[in-house]
């Protein structure tokens, strides 16, 4: 009798071990996902599901490939929820504040909520980032030398407190945004804004800058009420927790850590919105968030873990809309470090990299090969650019030529989140093939940022986002020598190259599109020749909607205007 018990018990125990083994991965998945979104501020959807064996890995990849194809098929959902009045939007990270400029301009968690409450002068088209649509500005015009933009301001716009939006409010908001530390990178070329007359405001620039209007789509440049902001400051009210703007939805309540409730603003300048109530719920666990969508607890989900994607795609009640993100993951080779100052060694590293393999092994196939630092959908993207192809033999030859026939050892850093650490491990393996021993350190995010900013590394794997759809936003800060040997996450490769300076400067100043495109292509080639940065991959930006909601479109800038959505079928 006792023996039977023992056998029975051991069977139960061993099956438990198996279960807990499976479960272990899923918790890791969720916590990693959160880390990523907190630090980066955007929800980069990449694959987290660990594959247990080679065979299964292949299956997952096929699933992912299908997933990518299927995702492309649904771009705009069709509403079937007629008669409903409340839309529940789930985001995996709660914003820290709803004050425009209170967070970094790249913080998508802020953006998702703020775009409902505030309005900017212009907005990006939901389908094409490079196309601008009027919002609070009806039109805009550059002066002859391109150093001033005059905006014609929409009339009859009201703030949520019922007061009228004036040109003074617009000028005040812009000047406030220009002066904020969080906007230092975006507002660099802006000087000040001034009221011209009752309907016009001029934005003066320090130098001519074509894409400046695109920058104003960022909610950090949203129009706020001067009277309200000053009142908050005078009375010690936390503006970030009691937001007030001109947007389609007005603030009702913020339950710390749980949800933010908004309601339609009845005097909104855009007319009547389709959905009267909007609730943002914050569910940090991505799997729970996906289940909330499947079980009908919520209608819209921002921040889907790709482990859940195949299941959501198969679900007929759910539409998954994923588009290629405009930011990308890349290797930085610090040209001021002893070994990597030698271009041959940098080239050797570049020749070892097989991007598709990194995507398959490190991202479960969910990603796009990215050979140059400008991604699709961004002005300046060189469509036909291919770049250096994998060639391990040549890499070995270059190493020998540089005087290291037996290989080298370099220090390689990356954040610990699996969005980074898994692809970085594949890279590490690829380098080993040519005898390059990359000692990989997976670091806590804050520590990684500090090391990266202080150039305290030889090689790093990190991510850069594109705040507005123009190549200048990324390449100027990555390549210009004015940022070399300084601190901050600009020109981390410490490039001091006259040709690179010339290209980014000319492309920034030029107003001729064709000329700019040619300059950016040249820059991509120059980077490829010198192997300063080795772009690897881009991932997806996903929004998932219940089939009851219509009008939702995926977009790479994370702008989701709920005022465009409807519960009615089209």
């Amino acid at each position: 009798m006792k023996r039977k018990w023992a056998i029975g018990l051991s069977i139960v125990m061993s099956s438990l071990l198996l279960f807990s083994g499976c479960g272990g991965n899923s918790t890791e998945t969720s916590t990693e996902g959160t880390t990523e979104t907190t630090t980066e501020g955007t929800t980069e959807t990449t694959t987290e599901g660990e594959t247990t064996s080679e065979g299964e890995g292949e299956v997952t990849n096929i699933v992912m490939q299908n997933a990518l194809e299927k995702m492309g098929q649904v771009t705009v959902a069709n509403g079937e929820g007629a008669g409903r009045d409340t839309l529940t939007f789930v985001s995996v990270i709660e914003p820290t504040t709803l004050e425009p400029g209170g967070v970094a301009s790249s913080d998508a968690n802020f953006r998702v909520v703020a775009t409902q409450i505030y309005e900017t002068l212009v907005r990006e088209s939901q389908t094409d980032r490079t196309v601008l649509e009027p919002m609070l500005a009806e039109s805009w015009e550059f002066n002859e030398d391109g150093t001033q933009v005059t905006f014609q301001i929409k009339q009859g716009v009201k703030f949520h407190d019922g007061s009228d939006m004036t040109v003074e409010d617009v000028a005040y908001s812009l000047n406030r945004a220009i002066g904020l530390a969080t906007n230092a990178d975006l507002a660099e070329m802006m000087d000040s804004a001034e009221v011209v007359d009752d309907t016009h405001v001029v934005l003066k620039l320090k130098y001519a800058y074509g894409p400046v209007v695109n920058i104003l789509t960022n909610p950090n440049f949203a129009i706020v009420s001067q009277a309200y902001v000053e009142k908050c400051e005078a009375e010690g009210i936390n503006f970030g927790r009691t937001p007030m703007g001109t947007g389609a939805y007005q603030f009702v309540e913020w339950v710390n850590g749980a949800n933010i409730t908004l309601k339609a603003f009845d005097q909104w300048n855009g007319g009547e919105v389709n959905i009267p109530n909007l609730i943002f719920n914050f569910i940090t666990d991505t799997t729970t968030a996906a289940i909330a969508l499947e079980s009908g607890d919520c209608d819209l989900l921002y921040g889907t873990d790709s482990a859940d994607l195949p299941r959501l795609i198969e679900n007929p009640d759910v539409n998954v809309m994923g588009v290629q993100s405009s930011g990308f993951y890349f290797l930085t080779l610090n040209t001021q470090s002893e070994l990597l100052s030698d271009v041959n060694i940098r080239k050797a590293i570049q020749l070892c990299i097989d991007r598709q393999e990194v995507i398959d092994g490190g991202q479960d196939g969910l990603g796009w090969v990215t050979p140059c630092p400008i991604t699709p959908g961004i002005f300046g993207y060189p469509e036909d650019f291919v770049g250096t192809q994998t060639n391990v033999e040549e890499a070995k030859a270059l190493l020998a030529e540089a005087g290291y026939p037996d290989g080298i050892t370099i220090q390689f850093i990356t954040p610990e989140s699996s969005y980074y650490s898994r692809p970085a491990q594949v890279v590490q393996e690829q380098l080993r093939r040519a005898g390059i021993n990359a000692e990989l350190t997976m670091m806590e995010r804050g520590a990684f940022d500090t090391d990266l900013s202080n150039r305290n590394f030889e090689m790093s794997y990190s991510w850069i986002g594109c705040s507005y759809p123009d190549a200048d936003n990324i390449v100027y800060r990555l390549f210009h020598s004015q940022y070399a040997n300084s601190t901050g996450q600009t020109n981390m490769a410490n490039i001091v190259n006259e040709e690179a300076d010339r290209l980014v400067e000319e492309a920034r100043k030029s107003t001729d599109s064709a000329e700019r495109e040619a300059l950016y292509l040249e820059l991509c080639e120059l980077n490829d020749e010198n192997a300063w940065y080795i772009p690897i991959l881009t991932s997806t930006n996903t929004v998932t909607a219940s089939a009851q909601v219509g009008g939702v479109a995926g977009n790479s800038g994370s702008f989701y205007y709920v005022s465009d959505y409807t519960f009615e079928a089209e």
Partner: protein
Amino acid sequence: MHKYIIKRLLMLIPVMLGISFILYSIMTLTPGDPAQLILGPGATEEAIELKRQELGTDKGFWEGYVDWLTNAVQGDFGTSYRSKEPVFNEVFARFPNTLKLASSAIILSVIFGIGIGIFQAVRQYSMSDNIISGITLVLTSMPDFWIGLILIIVFAVWLKVLPASGANHWYNFIMPALTASVGYTAGTIRLTRSSMLEVIRSDYIRTARAKGAAEKTIIFKHALKNALLPVVTLIGINLGWQLGGTIIVEQIFAIPGIGTLMIGAVRSKDTPLLMASVLFVAFLSALINLITDILYAYIDPRIKAEYSK
């Protein structure tokens, strides 16, 4: 007794000081700059320096700690770096959820734990005792995120009878409380059983049986009181743990509690928020320990005699 309580309360002061110092050291001496994390990768060096001054992180280690301590003693624990809200606003907004979850989990574990434990002890080595022992062993070994996910799949996805997430209604807490209580219930069952068995074998129980007392009286009046001592300790410890936030359960069921708040504060290097929330939880745990010790006195007169010395 009063003297004892006052002594214990006074002892909290050095404990709190120690905790705050260790926390402050960890938060400031580990790499990562909150100013930089807030401003993002694009910020200039001047902007970061300004932000540091605004946050007060530009001061030296000792100066920073002394400043924090001076303010804290006067009741000002600062504002969160990120939300700019006074830290206790955030802590108190989250705490009710943690308290609901913790207390319901503990109540479940006490009811089932002690009840089943006694039942088993009375029927030692019977079939039911063996089966329950097997089940408790399995339950103790199960990680709670796994139980949580299984409950979600069954009750939220398949049966659609309970919500998978949120903390708005009482029924939101059914699955989280069950999940959080499973491990504790199993532990309580095992401890109650073994300590009950020990007591049942003791001389005074044999005496009670010999004088012909009813079995019910023996178990509940004579044995249980003595057997409960270690169980009360365990429950106290469990409650302390639970109030510290069952981070995993909170995360899985999207309950905005203390645990998720602390994790968030660590990630964003929000020192004032983390210190306030950890100190608050530490204070509560210490209080619960004290209450447990006082309860001993009521359960066991021998200990009461000790206290009065």
